[in-house]
């Protein structure tokens, strides 16, 4: 019996030990718009393609979760928005309870636990997104980059890519990444990586960038993105 015969149910293992629904969720991520995350010495860069036609109004993909944490995704947009709202609430509740901003690792583990819930319950399906979460921890002052998968697994990365063409993008990053990259170089490298997966020209209208450093998380403005693209 092939694995696919067990694909109908989330809560049934296949003979090879996989949960096929989660594999299929990962496929939804693989077919999503490409996104890139890169951890520089003094900050983290998140970049993603945000293709929209001339008739579309801007809808941001890079979102801020708390003062020092932001995220981006590849996969299904609506699922992402639910997770962002959840993440914001988790961060706010932590702050209310402990009187300080939630450390990035804590947010990642709590959010991953939420995603895992949806792989072990009845009547639900896994989230069709993988998240890239960028954060800055004040003590010690250091940047962090994490990936959260539909299965609830999370990984810490120095640099990674999600979505279409992610294998080539990761190979590209492996060659280009160095521990000494500053944030501006990081943005440069992330844009080059993203460009590998672009079939049209990259402009400030179809690319989104977010950066996270000791001053917090912020999205770059269209003008700032244009300047960085000009320097490529």
């Amino acid at each position, binding site marked *: 019996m092939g694995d696919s015969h067990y694909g109908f149910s989330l809560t049934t293992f296949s003979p090879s030990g996989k949960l096929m629904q989660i594999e299929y969720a990962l496929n939804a991520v693989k077919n999503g718009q490409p996104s890139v995350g890169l951890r520089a010495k003094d900050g983290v860069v998140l970049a993603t393609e945000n293709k929209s036609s001339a008739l579309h109004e801007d809808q941001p993909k890079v979102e*801020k979760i*708390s003062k020092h944490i932001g995220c981006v995704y590849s996969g299904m947009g609506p699922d992402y928005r639910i997770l962002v709202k959840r993440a914001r*609430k988790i961060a*706010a509740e932590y702050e*209310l309870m402990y009187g300080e901003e939630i450390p990035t690792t804590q947010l990642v583990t709590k959010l991953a636990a939420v995603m895992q*819930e949806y792989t072990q*319950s009845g*009547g639900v399906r896994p989230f069709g997104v993988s998240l890239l979460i960028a954060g800055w921890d004040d003590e010690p002052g250091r940047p962090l980059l994490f990936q959260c998968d539909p299965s609830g697994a999370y990984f810490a990365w120095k640099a990674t890519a999600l979505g279409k063409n992610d294998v080539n993008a990761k190979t590209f990053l492996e060659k280009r990444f160095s521990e000494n990259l500053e944030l501006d170089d990081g943005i440069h490298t992330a844009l080059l990586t993203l460009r590998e997966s672009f079939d049209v020209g990259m402009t400030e209208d179809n690319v989104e960038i977010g950066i996270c450093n000791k001053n917090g998380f912020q999205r770059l403005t269209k003008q700032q993105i244009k300047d960085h693209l000009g320097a490529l």
Partner: protein
Amino acid sequence: MASTLVYEQKPSMKESAFSFDNCARNMALEKLGMSGPKLRSTGTTIVAVTYKDGVVMGADSRATAGNIIADKHCEKVHKLTESIYACGAGTAADLDQVTKMLASNLQLIELNTERKARVITAVRRAKQHLFRYQGHVGAYLLIGGVDPTGPHLYEVHAHGSSCTFPFAADGSGSYAAISILERDFKFGMTQEEAEALTQRALEAGMHGDNASGNSFNLVIITKEGTVFKGPMVPDFCVKPQSNDIEYKFKPGATTVLKQKIIKYEVVESMDIE
């Protein structure tokens, strides 16, 4: 395969409505003659004044428990957002928690709507929370700030009512403070005039009310940003310097009336170093 999702447990008001059992018990005990524990109150003077470009808000810093000053430098000007502040009078613990909750809610609203939160939003959230507890959460707030629709000032009471004013005062020292405000307030003041008026009103309250005093804090909120001033100590609140005098008397200043000498025999001695 029906199973329920387990959401993260959090102390949520939705899980159970406020239980009034203890209130009934407390009232019965009081009828029997037992007095309840003294709530630490912020018997206070809080003042807020709107002017041409924004809002000036101020509060004293004395927290009392009955007749004792429990905290000389209590923080009564609470930040809700960068441009919305709340001054609180009432029960110290209730104020701390309510303002923290409001600040957290407003932060979430700002993140999710991608807009600066509005003063009226803070007021609505405060009202809806306080009304649910029927006045048992003793929080009397002056909520003021600047949002995209301009400068605003509201007064919210513990039972859940609110009103909007160009100037306001609350707390036990408000009677003194409001008289200054009623006499000297005018529309279209400059920032210096508004600051001076707030300071005079606060000093009136701190001077005349024994449950207010020690020092005061001011916050000036405008479209451009927020400036926090304090703690400032008015002259009549300055601790007096201690005056050390010499208490030495010349020998012979006191007359000797009687003299008795007792000789002791040393039986045993030991070192106690």
